[in-house]
């Protein structure tokens, strides 16, 4: 296909051509960044979390007398364990994704300067089983360790803890974490086990480094424990939760109870993120539609203007295919210019967003992918008008318009 005549004709229609190029460029730039944002947020929504998310229900209790915790919590646990379908139950201080961040800074030496901020969970007896933690190395807590551990000033008075795989690697790279010691403010704890990665209470707050930086302490029944964790088969959890709420409201008449399945808690935590994804998708669809219709409109106009020329070309021997090809190539050239400009613009916008907002660098492959998408869109949009152009009969050349 000879492109010189196309360029010559575009030079005559400089403004409409520039408009198409600019529109495609802008669409490309916005599309790249919007799709990148969508991708990042989708990745957030699917953060893995090594607990039994589908089987857990959580009941948060507020307004009980902390002084009675030592007797009330075991009593409540016995009642909850008696519900049909409950496979494990335990008390704890907080849950992953419950938006109630409890962080503590640990060091690996007694006088260490560099601290690692970890999310801290305190689990009552049976806690690791109720959550469904995946033990990778070592062991979980034994009964003596639960009995030995209290809660004082947001710290454990016990001597052992579990760490996640991520924390183990971050704290002791290429070493075995078992038996190592963590310190904070004159206290120390020995790592007895390493578990698969569990999310922090508020990973958005903790940031990328702290997302899986999580430690677990054992804890005897204590007023600091506000959550009961119930584990059951996924099909039982709605009934189990309902019956557990009934049982607890009888046992704790003065308390305010909030019950949720863990799947529901996860959904709530990411509700904002999901909304943003929907909005970005909506914008992308509308924008692509607008761009496509814009191309259809302008190309139709060109076809209408050039009916005579098309007729002449047909009369001197051009086939319908040639005419189609002419408009397709023309669109390809304009799209290419738009896409090249758009990629530069997309990159610039990404740099700007990186400097102003918490955005990371867009991987390079977003650029060619959205470029191909816009090329295809352009070709699809031009198909209709190009067909109409090809249908212009040669006899038009001999008639006045």
């Amino acid at each position, binding site marked *: 296909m000879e492109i010189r005549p196309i360029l010559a004709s575009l030079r005559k229609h400089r*403004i*409409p051509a520039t*408009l*198409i190029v*600019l*529109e495609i460029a*802008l*669409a490309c*730039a*916005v599309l790249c*960044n*919007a799709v990148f*944002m969508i991708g990042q947020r989708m990745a957030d929504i699917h953060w893995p979390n090594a607990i039994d998310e589908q089987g857990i229900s959580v009941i948060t209790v*507020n*307004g009980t007398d902390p002084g009675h915790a030592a007797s009330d919590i075991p009593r409540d646990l016995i009642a909850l364990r008696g519900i049909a379908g409950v496979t494990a139950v335990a008390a704890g201080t907080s849950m992953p994704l419950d938006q109630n961040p409890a962080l503590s*800074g640990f060091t690996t030496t007694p006088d260490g300067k560099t*601290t690692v901020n970890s999310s801290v969970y305190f689990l009552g007896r049976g806690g690791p089983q109720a959550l469904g933690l995946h033990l990778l190395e070592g062991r979980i807590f034994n009964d003596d360790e639960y009995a030995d551990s209290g809660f*004082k*000033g*947001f*710290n454990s008075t016990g001597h052992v803890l579990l760490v996640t795989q991520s924390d183990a690697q971050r704290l002791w790279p290429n070493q075995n974490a078992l038996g190592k010691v963590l310190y*904070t*403010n004159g206290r120390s704890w020995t790592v007895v086990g390493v578990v698969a990665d569990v999310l922090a209470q508020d990973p958005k707050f903790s940031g990328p480094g702290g997302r899986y930086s999580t430690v677990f302490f054992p804890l005897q029944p204590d007023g600091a424990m506000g959550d009961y964790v119930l584990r059951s088969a996924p099909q039982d959890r709605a009934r189990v939760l309902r019956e557990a709420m009934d049982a607890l409201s009888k046992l704790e008449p*003065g*308390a*305010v109870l909030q019950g949720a399945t863990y799947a529901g808690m996860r959904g709530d935590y990411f*509700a*904002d993120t999901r*909304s*943003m994804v*929907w*909005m*970005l998708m*909506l*914008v992308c669809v*509308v*924008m692509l539609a*607008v*761009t496509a*219709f*814009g191309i259809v*409109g*302008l190309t*139709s*106009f*060109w076809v*209408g*203007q050039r009916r005579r020329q098309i007729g002449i070309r047909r009369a001197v021997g051009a086939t319908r295919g040639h005419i189609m090809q002419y408009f397709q190539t023309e669109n390809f050239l304009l799209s290419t210019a738009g896409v090249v400009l758009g990629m530069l613009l997309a990159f610039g916008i990404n740099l700007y*967003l990186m400097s102003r*907002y*918490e955005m990371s660098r867009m991987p390079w492959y977003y650029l060619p992918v959205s470029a191909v998408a816009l090329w295809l869109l352009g070709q699809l949009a031009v198909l209709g008008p190009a067909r109409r152009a090809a249908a212009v009969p040669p006899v038009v050349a001999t008639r*006045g*318009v």
Partner: protein
Amino acid sequence: MFRYYLELAVRSLKRSPGLTALMVLSIGFGVAAAMTTWSVFRAVSGDPIPWKSSRLFVPQLDIWGPGNPAGDHEPPDALDYADAMALMRDHRAVWQSAIYAIAPMATPTGVGRMPIPLGGYAVYGEFFPMLDVPFEYGSGWSAEDDARAAPVAVIGDELNRRLFGGIDSVGKTVRIADQDYRVVGVLRPWNPQPVFFDVPDTGGFTMGGPDVFLPFQHALATGMANAGSVNCPKGVALDESGLAGLRRSNCTWITYMAELDDAATVRGYRQYLDDYAREQQQLGRFHWAPNNRLRDVPVFLDHEHVVPGDARLSMLVALGLLLVCLMNTVGLLLARFLRRSGEIGVRRALGASRGAICAQFLVEAGAIGVTGGALGLLLTGLGVLGVDRVLPVWMAGLARIDAVLLLLTVLVALAASLLAGAYPAIRASRVQPAWQLKTN
């Protein structure tokens, strides 16, 4: 002439309904997206107390020294107990109040009624006149009540409805955290956003307004737990939980606000803060030069980055969409106008000036803009009502439809279409009449 052009425009728009619909949709969608996100942005970036925000100040003291909290040279955004009490004692501003968040339980009278979890603040009586807090019944409490830590309470509108059925409950007793409080005031619905007097705890936004206000000294005396965030300098941990531990620590958990009415008092207060820090330096508590801030509410809100990134980002994305829609409209209008070169040639030959042609096409562009604006209004309305599906719930709750939004939607649509129509109209008015007449 305008009516004639309008008639021409309508006739021409009717002739190609597809293209017209395309332009109207394009403008409508672009404007609606921009206005919906703007309504949210306006809500979150607004001034919560515009008539007074420049006279309300947040003092910040560098109580932790260099390297805290995050290595920058900014002092923490809240105060510890000792310094907050020292500022209250010195009482250098017209009005001032130390503030901490509380979350006690209210016990309604009557058998079998569930306790109600509350959100509120322990404040000084000056808090209410300082922030122009609107009262439905009664008023705040006096300095004397503060001094003797009297068990009085100001309750919010919603709590008053739940406990007393919305009547004038001043003088009645409310049981909070197992203590009896005498109600001295009932607020009108009051929930300023951003929550400018408690940014560190709320991040700026809350779903419901505060339920209860109790005297600071009384809350302290009864050991009412702090429900807000606590920040400690590196290497410091609370050796004792509860208020007692907080009061002895240099961790920050108290927010503070002061009213300073003119530039001279602001200067005086700055001087006072520096003198205070220097005094602490001499006493050996601070080992560094005074490094204080005194920001008014708008500057403080900006400093705390209360406007959420998502609100800005979605507005930027929507503006991008509007821009694409605008380009699209320019292209389509150009196509549409130039297709009528023959008609323009005839009109010019019959004596119409370039200005007249230009005006005719601008009217046509404007007509498209107004129609697009109407569609945009409809979509913006739907957008603002349905915004809770696409934006975080608390953010969406702030977006609302009002006259300004409606008017602005139509104006933006009209301006966008005229802007889009400007070049095509000028281009159309440059058509050579002789050439057009000859070729056709």
